[in-house]
């Protein structure tokens, strides 16, 4: 396993004490695999992603284990973690427009990302090179990276500022900066949400190609079942900080067990027009860590009195398939 997340629990500081946004999340990702984290907004997906990178600021508390290539990221010092970010595990943030600094050219931003990790070792190795030579070496590498993410005419594009780019181009540039430190592991936080549908497909293909060519493992965070269906191998469904179901994407699509997974699937429009998409009533409750029992019970069509008692256990119901719902407790 390249990444093994076990029992990840994250508390975020709020005015009324700590809020347990992520509660005992576990999953694992193999090299070259695309793993999906699925759920509505406000259910803890992004907090999970930021916890993996330890980007939630000094006041947030994360416990559990995030083992990347045999090393627990949560145990690293801040300096060691900084060295790991970008070089071993990189993030593609949600919005491509705001993820790029408006004050610098695209090429300079990719160059900076290269220099951050190349800096220590690379400068010594290239110690003989003069300053301008090193700059042009880095610049050439930046152009290569831009070409690698499917930007046409990368030499010219590198000279441009982000506001001169379209959303899809920005997203490709963001991916290029994420790849600059040659990480093995990529976290893509809603990589296509801010984009046009036509462009989304291009980005999905790009990520899929990078996975195959570079052997990258990718954690894709999304609320879109259709996107995950397209290229993720396995996925975990998150609701209110809990993993409610975990299986291969195919299983989740064919035979979802948890009522929440079923409800999410019912939200996907059916092109045949046979079944109208059904929205899930209600919202993710804001302070969900205070709820007793199953956190989905308020919105669940199958809810019973027992649901509000204890939090159901995550039960294995099949090969690589677990679900957290009392409906399946009898199956054992």
């Amino acid at each position: 396993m390249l990444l093994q997340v076990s029992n990840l629990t994250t508390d975020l500081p709020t005015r009324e004490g700590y809020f347990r946004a992520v509660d005992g999340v576990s999953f694992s990702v193999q090299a070259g695999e695309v793993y999906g984290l699925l759920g509505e907004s406000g259910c803890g997906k992004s907090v999970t992603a930021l916890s993996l990178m330890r980007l939630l600021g000094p006041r947030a508390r994360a416990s559990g284990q995030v083992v990347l290539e045999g090393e627990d990221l949560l145990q690293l010092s801040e300096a060691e973690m900084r060295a790991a970010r970008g070089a071993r595990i990189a993030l593609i943030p949600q919005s491509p427009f705001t993820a790029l600094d408006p004050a610098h050219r695209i090429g300079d931003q990719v160059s900076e990302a290269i220099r951050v990790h190349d800096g220590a070792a690379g400068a010594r190795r290239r110690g003989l090179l003069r300053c301008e030579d090193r700059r042009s070496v880095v610049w050439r590498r930046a152009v290569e990276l831009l070409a690698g993410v499917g930007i046409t005419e990368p030499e010219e594009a590198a000279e441009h500022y982000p506001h001169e780019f379209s959303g899809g181009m920005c997203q490709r540039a963001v991916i290029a900066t994420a790849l600059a430190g040659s990480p093995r592991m990529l976290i893509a936080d809603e990589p296509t949400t801010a984009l046009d549908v036509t462009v989304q497909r291009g980005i999905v293909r790009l990520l899929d190609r990078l996975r195959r060519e570079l052997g990258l493992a990718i954690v894709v965070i999304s609320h879109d079942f259709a996107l995950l269906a397209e290229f993720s191998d396995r996925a975990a469904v998150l609701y209110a900080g809990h993993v409610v179901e975990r299986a291969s994407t195919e299983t989740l699509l064919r035979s979802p067990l948890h009522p929440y997974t079923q409800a999410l699937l019912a939200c996907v429009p059916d092109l045949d027009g046979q079944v109208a998409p059904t929205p899930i009533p209600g919202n993710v409750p804001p302070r969900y860590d205070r709820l007793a029992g199953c956190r989905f019970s308020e919105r669940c069509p199958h809810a019973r009195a027992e649901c509000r008692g204890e939090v159901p256990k995550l039960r294995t119901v099949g090969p690589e398939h677990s679900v957290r719902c009392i409906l399946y407790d009898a199956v054992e």
Partner: protein
Amino acid sequence: MDKTVVSAPAPTLWRDLLRHRAVGLALVVVALFILCAAAAPLLAPHDPAHLDLDRRLQPPAWAGGEWSYPLGCDQVGRDLLSRIIYGARTSILLGVVIVLLTLVVGVALGSIAGYAGSVVDIVLSRIVDVLLAFPFLVFALGMMAVLGPGLLNLILVLAFKGWVDFYRVARAEVMSLKAQEFVEAARALGLSGTRIVISEILPNMLPAVTVLAALCMATIIIAEASLSFLGLGIQPPTPSWGMMINEGRPYILTAWWISTFPGLAIAMLVVAINILGEGLRDALDPRLKETS
């Protein structure tokens, strides 16, 4: 495959700046004053300190004076034009020195407070609040009265109060910029805090700081003139516009030119700097740039 949408060459600052005629004019005026300041000994027709009691209160050339003294002479017969040209030197030199000083101090402290937050921010911001509680001119007057007039004291007093504006703008900019996603993205790439401030945050607050620098320059020129008018700033024989206005005050009904021309010089320079400041703001803001 999605293509580049806009392929306009990066527009230069100058072209953006000169889009409006007023800004172009302001630029010319400011450049002219800077030229006066830089080349005062070459441009001034006479020694600004040379007294000539025969020419006492001599009116401007077109009002009955001589063309060798185009703007007339003051109450002790010194050439007004020469004194105004030398006065530009005082005003601009003082303005530039003070703005640079306050900019460096204010931006540095403001960035530290904005990025570090918590205790550092609270302590610095309270100090700033105390300074802000005093009206600028009253504070400067009081300080000058205590320290005594003189160039160094003038710089110290104006700078002591001036950095507060840069502090507030820098702090606010850093606080809003550090919440931006590209800063988080930079952290996700493994950049350190110092490096993020230098390469991501400072370039983005440059437009705001530049505009503020222009506006501060105007304020400082006025403050210097005010203090010199009251006799607490620049001391004779160094020519200063504020001092010249004061010297002409008793003669305002009989020899209007003594106070009027330095006053015009102040007004022109300050208005030009302000227009230039606004032009800079529009030109530097990448979001206001028309890409057509």
